[in-house]
């Protein structure tokens, strides 16, 4: 699916630009996209180092273990094939907390850390395991309690009540997260036969 979508994005863009008579935009946007990706990756280096460094300190101090122990009855149910006390659970808990508190920059490093721990349990290293798909479902619905960025944009635009949307955002993301996890679980239970290549 990802291959088809990747091709479609490029093919549609090129065909449309050609049809509209401004094909030169394809070259410039391809190059600027590639440059932007490298810039982003370089910016990520700093953030990744900072949060994975802190994560290591938290791990050594036993904070991660205490955290995952407290929340493991809940997390274990979401990730049934991860053994209890596996470091993956701690990483998942840290990532979910960072997400909930809207720590935008900290979420990516912690999410990657969680993925790396799940990869250790994955028998097919090139193919996503069911637990990895579940983690991705949690990330993409982005359950957030404090949407800090949007509150800042709203208050900069002169809103009378910038945080008015917080309650509704919470309700919406809870709805989306619960239904997405349900879809994920249904596929896990019933749709596996054909999809594992």
């Amino acid at each position: 699916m990802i291959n088809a979508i990747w091709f479609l994005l490029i093919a549609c863009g090129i065909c449309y630009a050609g049809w509209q008579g401004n094909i030169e935009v394809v070259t410039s946007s391809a190059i600027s996209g590639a440059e932007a990706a490298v810039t982003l990756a370089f910016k990520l280096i700093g953030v990744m180092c900072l949060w994975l460094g802190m994560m290591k300190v938290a791990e050594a101090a036993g904070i991660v273990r205490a955290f995952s122990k407290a929340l493991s009855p809940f997390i274990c149910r979401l990730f049934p094939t991860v053994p209890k006390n596996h470091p993956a659970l701690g990483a998942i808990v840290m990532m979910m907390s960072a997400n909930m508190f809207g720590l935008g920059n900290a979420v990516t490093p912690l999410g990657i850390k969680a993925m790396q721990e799940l990869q250790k349990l994955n028998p097919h290293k090139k193919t996503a395991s069911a637990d990895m798909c579940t983690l991705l479902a949690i990330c993409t619905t982005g359950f957030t309690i404090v949407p800090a960025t949007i509150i800042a944009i709203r208050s900069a635009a002169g809103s009378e009540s910038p945080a008015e949307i917080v309650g509704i955002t919470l309700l919406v993301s809870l709805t989306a997260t619960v239904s997405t996890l349900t879809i994920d679980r249904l596929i896990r239970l019933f749709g596996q036969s054909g999809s594992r290549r």
Partner: protein
Amino acid sequence: MVRMLEMLSVWIIPLLLFAIPLIGLLRRVKIYEAFAEGAAEGFQTAIRIMPYLVAMMVAINIFRSSGAMDALANFLSPVCDQLGIPQDIVPLAIMRPLSGSGSLGLTTEIIHTFGPDSFIGKLASVIIGSTDTTFYILTVYFGAVGIVNPRYSLFVGLCGDLIGLFASIYICQSVFN
């Protein structure tokens, strides 16, 4: 409420940066060395995701700046009208799973055009606050561990975006109208 949320979002990172090393110190962890060890992993990971980011951002950039995205939004707007999706939200709905900075830009534009306290302004705020950039997350997270076959997870992620979109519209309509 706003003051409290603003306080929380300003204080939470300094608090974490203080509390984690403090607890480490109390537990006699060599915190400086542990930090450096973790940071070394961060460096390698950021480099490893670069090719996946390039692949994804080139495709999305071509799609967007060729005008194909706007054409798709125009093409879809009668259908979206039937489904109750306001016309001004359609480009944002398409952009949301593709690009975080792109959709944040569109939201800022919508908020400035219609006003932050208009229905469209609030709806755009809720959409941006309650969903995440599916393609970016898939690229970065799976890229970092070398997964090339994401199986059904892209489908599930896009379902989540769609559910988030409709939930935003219906909940906003029943609360604000």
